[in-house]
């Protein structure tokens, strides 16, 4: 029982380090559960912490109706953000350091207070949030060709890769999160757009879900942590030389370049 968790965790870690994707875990173990998948994820979180990586926050995934239907699930998932994944606003990403990256525009919440579930409401999230910033998440998959089921992506730290956050802080007062529009530009062309409602109907709800979900693992959101609250539009495949800019209504913009 414990064996395959260790083995899969090790495979995923090696795949990440060597940038060499592996076959889906679910194609090799049909009975892999969501609970098993979070155990695999946690194994690698512990391993990375031992290596000196520092947790910067969490990311929420599988938050749109389209992706939930594609994966045939009705729940989101989450993964950990580490300091090693951070890219500065306007920074450059070497595309070769990733396996099969995709670009997303999101709203990032920065926590002012600890937030512990269960029973966390949207109102609790708003009270515990210091401010929000626009962000770009670069997701990546250690599973070959993104052939993921929900268990595969959870085990793979929710397919996290890198993240960029903008430097303009906006307090949550009077923001209608459902309504905030987002445009993602590639080399000056708007390629996808979305609105806050794309993430579980409201990104605040997604953060509440996360706080409650973490409580199942005895975990919680800590003051100062960054929470990427879910993609607001379809994923975009980057190419070498592409310049991406995400602009979110009232929150400002954030950009990154691939080389």
């Amino acid at each position, binding site marked *: 029982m414990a064996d395959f968790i260790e083995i899969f965790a090790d495979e995923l870690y090696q795949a990440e380090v060597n940038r060499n994707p592996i076959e889906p875990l679910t194609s090799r173990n049909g009975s892999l559960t969501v609970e098993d998948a979070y155990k695999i994820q946690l194994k690698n979180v512990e391993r990375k912490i031992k290596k000196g990586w520092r947790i910067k926050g969490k990311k929420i995934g599988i938050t749109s109706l389209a992706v939930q239907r594609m994966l045939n699930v009705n729940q989101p998932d989450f993964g950990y953000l580490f300091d090693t994944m951070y890219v500065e606003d306007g920074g450059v990403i070497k595309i070769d350091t990733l396996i099969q990256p995709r670009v997303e525009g999101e709203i990032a919440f920065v926590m002012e207070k600890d937030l512990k579930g269960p029973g966390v409401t949207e109102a609790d999230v708003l009270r515990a949030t210091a401010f929000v910033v626009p962000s770009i998440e670069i997701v990546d998959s250690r599973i070959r060709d993104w052939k993921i089921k929900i268990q595969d992506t959870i085990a793979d730290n929710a397919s996290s890769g890198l993240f960029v956050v903008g430097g303009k802080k906006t307090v949550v007062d009077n923001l209608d999160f459902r*309504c905030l529009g987002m445009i993602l530009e590639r080399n000056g*062309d*708007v*390629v996808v757009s979305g609105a*806050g409602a794309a993430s579980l109907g409201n990104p605040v709800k997604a953060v509440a879900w996360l706080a409650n979900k973490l409580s199942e693992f005895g975990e919680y959101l800590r003051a100062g942590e960054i929470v990427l609250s879910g993609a607001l539009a379809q994923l975009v495949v980057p190419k070498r030389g592409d310049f991406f800019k995400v*602009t979110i*209504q009232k929150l400002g913009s954030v950009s990154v370049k691939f080389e």
Partner: protein
Amino acid sequence: MPAKVKNNSLVKLKRIAQYLNECELERKEAEQIVKTYPEITVDNAYLIQKELVKLKISRGNKLIGYKLAFTTRTKQRSMGISTVGFGYLFDYMKIDDGGDLNLNEVIHPKAEAEIAFVIGEDLEGDVSPYEVIEATKYVAPAIEFVDSRYKDFKFELIDVIADNFSASRFAIGADVKRPSEVDLRLSGVIFERNGLPEKTGALGAVLGNPAIAVSQLVKFLSRKGEKVKAGSVVLTGSITEAIDVHEGDFIRVSICGVGEVSTFVVRK
């Protein structure tokens, strides 16, 4: 598809227009034009569209505006063009806000979320987006029901131009705003079916700002010697992917800072 006509191009184009109009009126799927007439050019296709418009006007339909297509730079670039495509809107296509789309009047409709510009002053010539905004009386949320007459929505550029860009039905919201009061780039758009946010977007999905799309329409029409008259409605192009609709659906488009528009999908 009408039998092939040789040597008389205008007769040919008129026959194709008649065929497409019949398909619309009798709700039957059309064969692709390009399959039978591979020689037809883009200019010819717009002539077919023009013949289709004449047919509708001769039947007593009233021209009330335009609908735009190819409203992203990625799409325009992939087609090697730098302008929107457009079709004509007629009075019979209008559905009231909160009204019904009757499936018995259409073939296989899909819904699109858009922002409509209602033009206050005639627009012609080489207008810039800011001049479009000055001449626009108000903007409103809109649902467009596109209904390609072609089988399985399969068509090529020539086909869709000839088919009046799949124009079929549309609803304009009663919530209207002056364009200067609206963030035409970043306002969020929520496209719901039965209360679920099926798709979301922002107004900038349309060429960065829908006013740019309207300015491209005006320039395009000017080259044909036409203008956008005061009172015209312009559906500025789909902001999100289209969604399928089924009997019993309740479709709603909310544009943040503008308002909402909704339609029931019925069979009656």
